[in-house]
């Protein structure tokens, strides 16, 4: 069953002569629990694709169906709710909120939802990500790897159906990068989630279930790496 469907998705930046077409009518389906890696040279439209799929930006044309729902038919508030309940984002530069502690950053999507925290799950998650003794620290007191793990925990906190990660290891050293990716892989396995990762690292890409290569805003190849 598909958790994500992109239909004829296009995005053009600018107008007239200076218009740049970042995505040219992308069609893509991602199944539940799938680990999809997207690769491609700089400017190929990877990040744009991810942002559109996650409802962070609006397409020029096309649809994004997430969990059976056309997300661009939703109003701004409903889209925000969808983002915090069904989607988890992981950015290259962690993007933690500096005034909140690691734990508060992790709980942010739940707190925004005014939901009661599933303490057991969060404890398990933080234990699993090795953050147990770092929860009360502010982001500026954490290492890069720790900050990225907090970002991962934040993305997983609300048990989203799908996680979008934009070069999650791009800012980490090789070992830390591998460690973070292992955690992500383990996590989706344990919590039955879908993972879409943008990466430049072919070694990471090879560990995915499916590898999509983008070039000049179009899908160049879409191959299943392993079943």
């Amino acid at each position, binding site marked *: 069953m598909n958790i994500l469907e992109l239909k004829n998705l296009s995005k053009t930046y600018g107008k007239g002569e200076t218009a740049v077409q970042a995505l040219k009518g992308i069609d893509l389906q991602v199944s539940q629990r799938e680990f999809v890696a997207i690769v491609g040279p700089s400017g190929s439209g990877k990040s744009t694709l991810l*942002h559109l799929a*996650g409802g*962070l*930006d*609006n397409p020029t044309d096309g649809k994004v169906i997430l969990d059976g729902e056309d997300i661009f038919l939703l109003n*701004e*508030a409903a889209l*925000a*709710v*969808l*983002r*915090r*309940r069904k989607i988890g*984002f992981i*950015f290259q*530069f*962690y*993007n933690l*909120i*500096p*005034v*909140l*502690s690691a734990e*508060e950053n992790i709980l*942010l*999507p739940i*707190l*925004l*939802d*005014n939901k009661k925290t599933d303490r057991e799950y969060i404890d398990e998650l933080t234990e699993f990500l090795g953050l147990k003794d770092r929860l*009360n*620290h*502010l*982001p*500026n*007191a954490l290492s890069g790897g720790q900050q990225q793990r907090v970002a991962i925990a*934040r993305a997983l906190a*609300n048990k989203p159906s799908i996680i979008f990660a934009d070069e999650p290891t791009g800012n980490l050293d090789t070992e830390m990068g591998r460690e973070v990716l292992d955690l992500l892989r383990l996590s989706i396995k344990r919590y039955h989630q879908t993972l879409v990762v943008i990466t430049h690292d072919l070694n990471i890409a090879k560990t995915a279930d499916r590898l999509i290569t983008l070039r000049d805003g179009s899908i160049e190849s879409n191959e299943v790496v392993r079943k």
Partner: protein
Amino acid sequence: MKNYIQLVSKYLRKQKKRTALTAVGIMLSVSIITSIGILSDGANLQQIENVKKSFGSYHVLFENLDPEEAEVVKNHVRAGKTSIITISDIHGIPGSGRKMAICSIDDYTSSLLDIKLIEGCWPERENEIVLDITVLKDLGIEDELDKKIYLDLGKRKFEFKLVGLYEKSTLFSQMDSSYGIVIPETLKSIGSSDKFMSNVYMETVRDFPIMDSVNKIISDSFGEYKPPRFIKKVAGVSFMDKYISLNLFLLNVLGEGYDNVSNEYKIIQAILVLIVFIATVSGIYNAFNISVLERVRQFGLLRAVGTTPGQIRRIVLGEALLMSMTAIPAGILFGIGISKGFTSFMSELYSISGIFTLSLETLLLSALVSLGAVFFSAYAPSRLASRISPMEAIQDKGTVLAKSKKRKKRKFSFIEKLMGISEIMAYRNLRRNRKRFTITIVSMCIGIVMFMAFSYYIRVYEKLMFDDYIESDYSISVHRWSSDGSIGYPEEILDEIYGIEGVSNIYGLIKTNQSFLLPEDKMTDELKKRSRTAINNPGIYGTNLYLYSLDSHLMECVAGNVKEDLFQKENYKNGFPVMVYEPADEKKWKVGDEITIEKVKTISSAYGSSGNHTMSESTILTTNEMVKLKVAAVLNDAPFTSYKNRPLFFTGMETFKEIYPDAKYNSIYIDVTENADKEYIEPKLTRIAQSVENGQMISHEKKLQELNEMKNQIMLIMYALAACISTIAILNIINTISAHLIIRTREFGIVRAVGMTGKQLKKMVWSEGVLQAMISSLWGCSIGTAVIFAFYWLLKNDGHPIPWELPWKTIFVIFFINIAIGLLATISPLKRISKLNITESVRCESF
């Protein structure tokens, strides 16, 4: 690009919005400085003009000189515009009780003494005369110009041609004689010049300090009397039969006097200006600090490619200079616009004119002060920029300039447990960068302190200006005072007033200006400056102070427990009993002290308390007899007046009549019953009031109305000035808060990316505005209260009329307005943040 400094203009051009925001910040601050400069310049000029109108524009007056001496004084090298008025003998006008003299004036008289010609022209030929319009009736002359008139001057009648009529100027009205004005030749023809005396009104030359010139003229012209440095210590000096006095009212407003009374007010004004200056500096500092914080990455990159910290500093200061080049002139123009608009608004509304004046000096000074403030303010941000490490910027972790201590652990505090996540984030955001937070709070506080200080200043001013000290329905009074109480209403008039239907109560008062001879230990420095001293007895000071003589009812008003009984006749042997009020903390007077006044025998017209003694009084000073007074009580407060900075004396009516048996009431206060027929009473009282020359009836209801109108005008000026300053302060606050929000665009993008709805975002930003407003109100009101307490404390020694109380109303208004501003400030940045899509926000450079 030829030089790295060109980065400055490139950046400014590229970041038009940011540049505009900073430049507007500078412009607003400059406009505060300029408008304060222009408005206070205008107010000052207005004050000088008013004083000149009331007291003349001369600096020093030499009285009772021989005509030859007058010429010597006039021709002194330090003498500027000078007018000699030579006066003949004073003669009574038959059948009227008024007195008249002939005096000659010269070309400068009308400008130095502000005498206004109502009709006709000044005398130009011999035997031409100009008369005081009020004296025509007494002389039995019809109001017709170019007619021959005959005046009886002592031994014989003289023929004159009436060519003009003048209105008594304030200065002339202090003299109780009326003057016929002629040219010097006419005066010579009517009598022998050795009987004449000359008064010389003089403005000293501009190039030297006034006091310096006055002393030089005195020592050069009257060297034989050796007046020893007197003029530095006292307001006037008498020697032989001459009298020299300063026009202290004018000198004080020109800043050449020594009026310490106004020092407290000057301190208050200086504090206000200082507050405005701090507001300006903090406004500009804010603008630059934010513009640097926004560009951390850019500066980091510049550092990475080899820019030295010094070069970075120069870039930031270069920006300051470049922005100043447009923002300062714009600010000055804006300031001129504000002041001009305000002034014309006032004049249109209330026909108050002449306040607006532009001087190159003020504009240059404003520009210089502003430029200084800009550099002073930009220096710290430039240092901050130069300290940015290349690594911090390149890593772009987003917390680059978070110089606050790394706090490792953070748990929900008690307060936070009561809040939702939006409020918690707002609260934490405020506290995360102490420095930035402090700057915002300080600039908001300054606005608040300014508002509080101004409100308080207005209240004090209002109280001082419009203190209505005797509450009664009507009063009749004579507007000429005599030292012996001989001008006024006799005792019988009281019965006549009582006889009017509807009158319920009458209180009588004799206010006289007595010449007190006080020993040095009773003299404060302040008092010395208003006194004269005789050349032959420098230890005794002659000073004019008020003596109030009260009927028994008013006596009780002075001090509840002091009754006329204290003033038993047996005391008179040892000195007439008086009560003395002395300004707080002076402690120079005690019960039993003895003092002397000079008893006068003739009508005098001492007016005011210093400097302006007329010829007739100086005549009186030489024909006196001493009266001993004994202090029977020392008072903590004095009624009937707001001017409590000098000792005031009170005595019972009976006592005063012991000294001056013929004393008459110069003020009578009348209460009427509730149902009294005012239309019946008023004409009756007016007739009684006018039975004495210069007497008038005042309906306090009407007076209160007039006073209220005047008060409203002045209050409007004050409030408009306060509003002007507050508006600029508010705009600065809005600028600061919105800039703080704009530089966190990326952070807002992230919270939206993880699912914060627009509503939650608004709530967070609003909470931030409200919290900021509440914290700054708390601080601002505390500091403001301390500042106005300091004002109160300073003014306390000056007979401060307002008792201390917490300004609750003002505090409430401040909280309300400040919260509104806090919310208002978030509107525009919120719109901007909401418009940006999340991807753009997250990509935003600053954090």
